[in-house]
């Protein structure tokens, strides 16, 4: 970096401001002149030859002919499509609020937000609009903030012009020259931390003729989060800079909190409808492999740009990037949104749901295949049970029955692959958990089996096993307690209850090999 600065300039005081500039930017960046006033003539997506929207050079559509205040929405809602066909001056006002909010059940995090929620308010304008953006930083904020909108043509995307101290406001105006779906984010140093704390959202610049009509539109934005405690560790969890630098996310989430798109919060639609998702990825680090289990995207505006790809299973959404996808719903049921970098879905929270109501279409989907049960129904019941268990736990009221219920949900994804859904195991390879004499002889010994794994010769119900069970120490204390309580109360086992405190005690007395999950 270069300092356009030296002691000869006044040191301090009003107006005497030393300025740090990047020589690079001073030298090279300029603002393209607002260009031609003719509207581009784009038609709704067609798979024909590649079209050219003309980019920013064709972006200006003449001076604003009216003024309006933008309708802003919180995810998963999207402001209504723009029906006017003339350029307007659109006023957007966003308030930055720092707030402690739940990130998972019983877990809170200090989010920094554009408008009180993560992701920030959805902004919808039309190509050629002149946007007057006012950023207010709430007086209770501890940090200065600003906004860099990727839809802006001009150095810094608005960051410098909106750099705002707590209890202050600032404003700048830009013309939305390029159509597309754009991320905006805070660009105050340290940028990574402001983004990691949730400072991002989407702005849609509609093409002049609008987007093709659909029945429903939703706003889904992914982000990765880094906390000092591990995934689902209860209580207030501070930001962990080291994990952020290592890109070792604790949570990967849609819409800023685990469960924000699950069960009662699921997106809802009906058979026969066409659904469009405006998908963003705030990062700060991870690229999303966005996928909806059980659907194929009919259209994808790849990276939120102009060209449409068709019949896509999984689309990449870069950190600081977006995609627009749509699909027609033929079959009722629950569809699961995931980041198909799949450990993020099952172990870091990147799951959401679309619940589709309507009449069965047996011709399209018989409903008898194993997959339908596995993917749709189970995900629904799992999430519900786990959620109920952890909220009860937050209040310290977990009964044995609740532990069993939560453990059952976890068992399916965690243990059943080897020990079987009914705990019967596989003779000679995986010992049974059902009626296991080894287990029933000393149920609390199983805590050690889960934390450290088990290898070498064991005899279970007269069968000899000499194999390896990997350590399951990535599970937290609650999860291990619930799993084992479920196991000892199932399939003819001797009953009882394993508490989270027992697991905790055992874990703290267990030296861990270097690099193992705690």
């Amino acid at each position: 970096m270069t300092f356009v600065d030296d002691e000869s300039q006044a040191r301090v005081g009003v107006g005497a401001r030393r300025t740090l500039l990047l020589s690079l930017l001073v030298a090279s960046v300029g603002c393209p002149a607002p260009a031609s006033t003719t509207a581009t003539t784009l038609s709704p997506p067609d798979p024909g030859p590649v079209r050219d929207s003309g980019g920013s050079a064709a972006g200006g559509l003449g001076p604003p002919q009216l003024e309006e205040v933008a309708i802003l929405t919180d995810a998963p809602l999207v402001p209504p499509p723009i029906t006017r066909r003339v350029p307007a001056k659109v006023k957007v006002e966003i308030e930055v609020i720092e707030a402690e909010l739940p990130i998972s059940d019983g877990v809170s995090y200090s989010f920094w937000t554009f408008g009180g929620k993560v992701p920030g308010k959805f902004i919808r304008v039309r190509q050629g609009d002149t946007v007057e953006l006012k950023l207010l930083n709430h007086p209770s904020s501890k940090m200065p903030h600003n906004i860099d909108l990727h839809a802006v043509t001009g150095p810094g995307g608005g960051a410098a012009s909106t750099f705002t101290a707590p209890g202050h406001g600032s404003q700048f105006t830009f013309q939305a020259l390029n159509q597309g779906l754009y991320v905006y984010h805070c660009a105050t140093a340290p940028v990574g931390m402001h983004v990691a704390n949730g400072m991002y959202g989407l702005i849609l610049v509609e093409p002049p003729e609008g987007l093709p009509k659909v029945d429903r539109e939703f706003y889904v934005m992914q982000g990765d989060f880094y906390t000092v405690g591990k995934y689902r560790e209860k209580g207030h969890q501070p930001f962990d800079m080291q994990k952020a630098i290592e890109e070792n996310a604790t949570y990967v989430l849609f819409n800023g909190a685990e469960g924000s798109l699950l069960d009662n919060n699921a997106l809802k639609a009906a058979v026969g409808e066409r659904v469009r998702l405006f998908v963003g990825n705030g990062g700060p680090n991870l690229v999303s492999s966005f996928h909806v289990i059980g659907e194929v995207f009919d259209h994808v505006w790849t990276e939120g740009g102009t060209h449409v790809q068709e019949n896509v299973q999984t689309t990449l959404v870069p950190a600081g990037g977006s995609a627009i996808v749509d699909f027609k719903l033929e079959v009722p049921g629950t569809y699961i949104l995931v980041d198909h970098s799949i450990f993020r879905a099952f172990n870091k929270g990147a799951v959401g749901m679309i619940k589709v109501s309507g009449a069965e279409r047996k011709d399209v989907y018989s409903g008898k295949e194993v997959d339908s049960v596995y993917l749709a129904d189970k995900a629904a019941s799992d999430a519900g049970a786990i959620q109920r268990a952890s909220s009860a736990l937050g209040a310290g009221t977990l009964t044995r029955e609740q532990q069993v219920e939560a453990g059952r949900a976890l068992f399916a994804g965690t243990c059943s692959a080897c020990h079987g859904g009914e705990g019967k195991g596989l003779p000679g390879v995986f010992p049974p958990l059902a009626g296991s004499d080894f287990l029933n002889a000393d149920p609390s010994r199983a805590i050690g089996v889960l934390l450290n794994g088990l290898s070498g010769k064991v005899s279970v119900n007269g069968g000899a096993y000499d194999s390896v069970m990997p350590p399951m120490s990535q599970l937290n204390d609650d999860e291990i307690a619930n799993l084992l309580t479920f196991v000892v109360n199932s399939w003819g086992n001797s009953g009882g209850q394993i508490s989270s405190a027992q697991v905790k005690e055992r874990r703290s007395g267990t030296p861990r090999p270097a690099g193992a999950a705690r």
Partner: protein
Amino acid sequence: MLAFLLIIALAASPEMVTIGPGPAVAKNGGPVDVDVGRFLLDVDLVSRTDFAAFVGDHPLWRRDRARALFVDERYLADWASARAPGEDVDPAAPVTLVSWFAARAYCSAQGKRLPTSAEWELAAAASTTKKDARADPSFVAAILDWYGRPPAPLRANHRTQANLWGVRDLHGVVWEWVEDFNFALVKDGRSGDGGALFCGAGASAADPADYAGFMRLAFRSSLEARFALPVLGFRCAKDVLP
């Protein structure tokens, strides 16, 4: 002779301690660390009671009289009256909602001055046991945790144990004014650019310990000298006698 004695008395006054020499520190985020000589620094943040006494002696700094050039509308806005903090706020808590001009005037009325950013950083680099704890993970984590959390209501000073130099509450209570706060990272709407923030951040991002310093730099550079903020207080410094 009398003046001389008076100066000795002030210099030795118990509420200030001598800082330095110590490790080189960033001069308000500049690229090179600098050595700071020895100087005196207040042990505690200036409290509301202290500031009320100053306002009593210098009525031109009352919120109803102070000139708009020097304070914004929020100057001392949490006080019950123009003269006193009142019952609703803790009088022993640090004074906040004061502008840079007001803070400077207060210090100069005590025969002191605001610390420079480098002086402040030197004092604040110390933990209770080390002169330079900037690479100490738990020290840094505690600072970052406070930066990250929404602010709690201010309570009396002396909340933290004095650090190795004998100074209290440098972290975890309020931000503090420094003399050269407005070394701007990016400020001017035309020539400024988000890139400086990105690239500047990148320079120190490799060392997570620097993040805390970088956040202070960002905070300071968002200020203007008239601004009065609920989370921004100050303490005074003074040269050591030769």
